[in-house]
């Protein structure tokens, strides 16, 4: 219990530290939102107009420490303010628009990669040296080494442009209204196939190798030999006895990758025109939309820290040896 409380306190401190960085970093970049807004227009606004505009967006030219205090307050009340680039939407609205799609994309691909990678890794370790191990593991690693940009573009070109089997972009057919009807759901799934598959393929290799290596370490253990002697089926031994125990490292890396989910996946979203958080953040940065950048960095920080915390908890739950400590 004390252990948990200590961990929790650590995370709160880390959160405040990260929030401070989130505040400082966008403001260190040269340029400001109002100038960027008018960069293309060629007009000079009189000072009163600039002041009035700044007030509308909430940038009062108060000194930095006061801005920081405002910011901390807004963090704890979750009032993230108005977005500059996507005015008049609030930052919450902008992020909520993109969040479901990011979750669909990244969660699905991570889960799929984790499941497939771990099962394949278990198989490869069980028959190590066999054909699946010799070809499958290097192949998966090679796939992982190819940058996601390349695989996305190749997949887009092959399946969407040349063969025309799958759509070239969007999260759902623009002609449809998004409801819970079968047509809408089918459209969403149909449009998600390419992005999810290309993202998943880039991650399988990692999980496969992690699982394989930790399992190979276990295979010499006594309880495996006992199981074989007892006459348990290959499958049961492989999955329930060996893989389950080898799961721990894979599980923690999976929990950590969940934290990165909220950063979106910029490359995939750009290639497939998928309305997720990654591209939203990129646009916020180029137009110096401080409230949006702050809001999204905040969410990413929270997600990362929570994922860490959950990984800690999971360890305690899954590994009985730790409970005694």
């Amino acid at each position: 219990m004390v252990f948990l409380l200590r961990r929790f306190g650590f995370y709160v401190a880390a959160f405040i530290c990260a929030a401070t960085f989130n505040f400082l970093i966008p403001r260190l970049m040269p340029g400001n939102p109002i100038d960027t807004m008018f960069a293309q227009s060629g007009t000079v606004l009189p000072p009163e107009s600039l002041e009035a505009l700044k007030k509308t967006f909430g940038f009062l030219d108060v000194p930095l420490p006061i801005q920081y205090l405002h910011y901390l307050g807004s963090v704890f009340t979750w009032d993230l303010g108005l977005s500059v680039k996507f005015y008049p939407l609030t930052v919450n609205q902008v992020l909520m628009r993109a969040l479901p799609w990011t979750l669909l994309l990244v969660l699905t691909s991570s889960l799929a990669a984790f499941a497939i990678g771990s099962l394949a890794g278990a198989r490869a370790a069980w028959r190590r040296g066999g054909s699946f191990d010799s070809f499958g593991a290097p192949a998966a690693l090679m796939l992982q080494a190819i940058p996601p940009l390349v695989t996305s573009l190749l997949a887009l070109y092959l399946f969407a442009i040349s063969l025309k089997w799958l759509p070239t972009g969007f999260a759902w057919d623009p002609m449809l209204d998004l409801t819970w009807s079968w047509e809408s759901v089918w459209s969403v799934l149909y449009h998600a196939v390419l992005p999810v598959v290309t993202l998943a393929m880039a991650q399988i290799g990692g999980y496969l190798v992690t699982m394989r290596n930790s399992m190979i370490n276990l295979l010499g253990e006594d309880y495996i030999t006992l199981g074989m002697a007892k006459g348990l089926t290959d499958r049961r031994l492989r999955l329930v006895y060996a893989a389950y125990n080898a799961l721990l490292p894979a599980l923690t890396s999976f929990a950590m990758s969940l934290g990165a989910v909220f950063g979106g996946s910029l490359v995939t979203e750009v290639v497939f025109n998928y309305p997720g958080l990654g591209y939203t953040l990129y646009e916020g940065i180029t137009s110096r939309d401080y409230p949006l950048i702050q809001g999204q960095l905040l969410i990413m920080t929270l997600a990362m820290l929570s994922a860490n915390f959950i990984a800690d908890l999971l360890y305690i739950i899954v590994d009985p040896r730790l409970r005694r400590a």
Partner: protein
Amino acid sequence: MIRKIIAAAFVALLPATAIAESNLTIVASLSTGWVRNFNPFNETTRLHSVRDFVYEPLVIFNSMHGGTPNFRLATDYNYSGNLLKLSFRLRDGVLWSDGQPFSARDVVFTFEMLRKRRELDTQNIWDRISSVEATDPNTVVFTLKRVNTNIAFEIVRVPIVPEHIWSKIADPVTFTNDNPVGSGPMTEVRRFTSQIYQQCRNPHYWDTQDLKIDCISFPQVGTNEQLLTAAAAGAIDWFGAFLPDIERTYVAADPAHFRYWFPPGGTVAININFDSPTPGNRAAFRTVNFRRAVSMAIDRRAIVDIAGYGYPTVNEYASGLGRTYQSWTDQEAEKEFGQYAHFDKDAARALLAESGFHDKEGRGFVANPDGTPISFTILAPNGWTDWVNTTELVAESLNQIGIDARVSTPEPASWTQKLITGSYDMAINGYLTGETPYRSLDMGFHSRFAGKTRFAATRFVDPELDQSLDAFISTIDPAAQRQAMNKVQMILAANMPYVPLYSNPIWYEYDTKRFKGWFNSDNPVARPDVFDGTPERLLHLLALEPVKP
């Protein structure tokens, strides 16, 4: 039973006999998701289909043909004898899309609203006008603060909104105008999602017999690559983008229907900072022969072909005027100084040598006559690949004549900031176009702008230049205007405060499969692009009609 089923299936498969609505698909801006903001004054998120299509201008001045007026909501305009009053005569019988009549009251209301809420006055028009009044329901008179014959062009850029709607809203700055009431051809918002939205025909449009299209729709596209993917699949009718190797990447997908036309637009030039932060560079930059040598070292033709894929138009004007405004050319200026805008590496080296720039320390690069080194970076905005490649070629050319130059590519917001604050040595920059050369030369070189916008980044000031620019707008006599513009060109040619490279292409691509009547080199009616900021796109829309299947 079976026959009934077959008959039903047959009927279901029959094409609908109702007349199909024509729908033009346009991409006028890149976005990651549409926000429903039809407020024409908002700079960041207004949709790029609000001006011109929802709110029609009073007059459209045809920039491609010397600024000749095409009268829309106004039928005439006149300056008073002393040039301090400008009156517009409005058209009879124009209605807003909700059926209410349009009158001078709406024009006066709009301008008064801009005066009260200066955040809406994005052109800062009240800096130049002192009052606006309606002398009768069809006449509006603007009183100017000083003589300015360019003001008509600036006034018509302000969108006119209906008084009976906008006078009732609490805050016009944050108003999102979800269901706009407008005077233009496409005011009805039929559908709006973050992925696509559609505007349809104004039921009370005054020029409805010229409008042959029912709806325009705008799919969301995030980047140039996505745009190309969609366009090559035949999903977009009208758009504008820089597509590298366009014959292969776009036209080849459907050579019978995909077309493009890139007429010359604004000048792209290398800006030289007269107030450079490094003393050595500043001394060199302030020497006219150094600037001339820089200009002669650059092979503009090669840059256009390599970096621009041949799309831009070479600009070898000593004054930087550009082919866009060739009817205004001052032949004297070009005769006297034209040599400095032509590619001649040997002459460049010779000019540097005879002006005292020598490589004293044997570094391989020249230094100032007094020995201080010259070494600088040329900025180009990251991601604008054609400009970045152009800048790289320029830096290479300068290295070849012995000048130590490198390229740096900060991201666009940072590049803009550096130009405005003056913390740069040289940078590539592009200028806006106007109905006459006045707009781009004024915003580039008049001393009142120096250091305030990204366009006035050179910080070159010359009182005579200011005088000539002011003289241009103080008269409506064409001969006097020409004389003033000649003087402007002579001063620019003699001093060469910037090094013009080429005229940026106007990006314009179109698909002739479903619609015809497109502007192109055989039919050069007006500027053909669909971007917000080109009011001629309204004329283009009216010229289009569906192709009969």
